[in-house]
């Protein structure tokens, strides 16, 4: 690791974690600190800009991206508890500034040191296990961005395997989208509903007590659908379980 014995991490907490579930941010920080990192949270962060970019509103997306680059480029690494936001920075910022000679090098430099949390812990920090207990049968929901943009699949499973009492059941269609897709969930609610119901049925069929995932967007969509449809599966961000916070209230638990 680069500039100091303890690498300085800029935690990109994500707008959804900030608003809905701060616990995920604290879990991420705790895991990073246990892995030997110093964690800082730049106050200037708001969002990665993905809603604007995916809607084709390039000017707004670029304004927000430039602010993220400026706020985070001084750190050794940027880590997000989300494949989606990390993927935005890593894959789409360089694409966004493809024709901008001033910002492209900065976008590329930031992209090169940006990681999704699970993959950073395992691949960069060399974490092989955690000290945590969670006596439940769980299934893991791979977000499309973690799986296909960031190439994360084995890492969360490897860490979950070291949690006391936890057993992992694989979804039959783990590679299939849950139907969140950001604004897609609002623009085409009925299609999104069908995709959520298929994913929830897949999870229930495994006999799992809990559904864990690495992206809060998918989890809010799936838990929200479960609440509406009367399904009682516990839903959590994987970082909470790995950080030993699996005993706290789950997502949407009164």
């Amino acid at each position, binding site marked *: 690791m680069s500039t100091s014995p303890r690498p300085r991490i800029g935690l990109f*907490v994500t*707008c959804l*974690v*900030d*608003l*809905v*579930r*701060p*616990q995920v*941010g*604290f879990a991420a920080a705790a895991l990073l600190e246990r892995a030997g990192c110093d964690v800082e*949270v730049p*106050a200037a*962060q*708001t969002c990665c*800009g993905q*809603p*604007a*970019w*995916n*809607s*084709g*509103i390039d000017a*707004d997306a670029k*304004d*927000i991206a430039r602010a993220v680059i400026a706020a985070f480029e001084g750190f050794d690494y940027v880590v997000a508890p989300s494949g989606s936001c990390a993927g935005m920075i890593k894959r789409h910022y360089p*694409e966004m500034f493809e024709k901008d000679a001033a910002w492209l090098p900065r976008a590329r430099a930031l992209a090169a040191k940006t990681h999704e949390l699970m993959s950073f812990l395992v691949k960069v920090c060399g974490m092989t296990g955690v000290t945590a207990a969670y006596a439940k049968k769980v299934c893991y929901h791979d977000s*499309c*961005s973690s799986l*296909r*943009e960031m190439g994360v699949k084995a890492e969360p499973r490897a860490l979950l395997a070291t949690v006391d009492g936890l057993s992992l059941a694989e979804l039959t*269609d783990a*590679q*299939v*989208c849950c*139907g969140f*897709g950001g604004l*897609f*969930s*609002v*623009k*085409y*609610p*009925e*299609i999104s*509903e*069908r*995709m*959520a119901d298929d994913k929830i049925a897949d999870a229930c069929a495994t006999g799992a007590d809990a559904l864990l995932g690495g992206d809060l967007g998918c989890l*809010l*969509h799936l838990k*929200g*659908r479960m*609440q*509406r449809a009367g399904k009682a599966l516990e*839903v959590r961000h994987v970082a909470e379980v790995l950080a030993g916070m699996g005993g706290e209230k789950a*997502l*949407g*638990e*009164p």
Partner: protein
Amino acid sequence: MSLDPRAFAENARAALKDPLLKPALGRLKTHFGAGRAYAVHAYGDFEPLREAGKAIRDYAVTHLDELLVQFEASVGARGGTVHWARDAGEARRVILSILQDVGAGTVTKGKSMVTEEIQLNPFLEANGIVPVETDLGEYIIQLRNEPPSHIIAPAFHLSKEQVAETFRTSHTALDPARNLVERNALVQEARGILRAQFERADAGITGANFLSAKEGAAIIVTNEGNGDLTRLLPKTHIVVTGIEKVVADMDDVAVLLRLLPRSATGQAISTYVSVMAGPTGESDGPENFHVVLVDNGRSSLIGTEAQDVLRCIRCSACMNHCPIYGAVGGHAYGATYMGPIGAALNPGTMGVAETAHHANASTFCGRCAEVCPVMIPLPKIMRHWRAVEYASGLAPKAITRGLSFWAFAAKRPRLYRLGARIAARALKLMSRRGAVRSVPVSNGWFAVRDFPAPQGRTFQELWKARR
């Protein structure tokens, strides 16, 4: 029956409620998805093959001008004729004039999506020529007066019971009490009826999967043998295809033939591969060989951010793996090309205003790009069309107003932090038993789901307090 692409959202809602559609679409995974996965696994190292396919198609798309002229010369040297059609209307008129020159009354057709695109059949009928679809799926939907719901399996949306019903209604000369329970009974019945049509046809029309510039050949892959009967029995054969189907030579075709059936049906190779290189000069082949090259908006994509979509070899892998297509089926799109390839192509050829829904109805999950045999960045192209839609002022105002409001705050961290603190508290206060049931400004979200209650304070404020 033909649906309006501008009404995609309504079409999709209706499709989701169709009890027969869900089991039919369930076969995408068991039939095409599993088939492709096995074929790719059995092949071994598939990625270099995709890279090779991409390179071949990229060369073709960036050398269309040279290759098409070479193709025309090669076909001419073998005694065939190439016709150029700028748009659907020109293509229809060229085809009609060829058919009228040979006095054709009945024309058999192999499966061709380009003839669907140019809406050839109704035009021929209006001009007194009877088109007979001979691909089983195409034949079924022709009887039902429906467009294809899938580019390689046109009747994919139907169960065999629905097909039996269609045959009973259409084949009125046959015994009404006949047994049509087994799949094979349906095939045999269609075969018997089509055999007579093959013998009667004055001309045959097929599409082309590839055109080989050097050899002047058109190549089709088929599984039913109807393509060969269509092209060989009548005296006149017309190939109707898009200008982008050309590649340099048969060596390139050979590479693409490894990719196409594996990506499409999961076959190592299709049952038939037909190489059609002009009139045979023998007694048992066509005397007249025509190729109609249709542009219809394709060339306008060259040099744009959507250019890569022209690499497409129409295998259907993208739609077979698309969760949106898998939920609503092909008809909801109201266009000849549906699913991810439609979403990337249609806004360019049919217009962004007409087909903006196609580009928007995607979660950008990325499976389409992952399985595409020629590595088309489909989500990237869809995003491009969304940008064009927004820049043209065509995006829905309810969405863009909300995004502008959000972006205004997202660019002002202090304002944003304040807003987030208020929102976290407000949503928590509005929640009952861990869920927010409704917020008037986001009807789309709350139409089908609750919003899990926030913890009540933002991470940023808690972090600041802790440190």
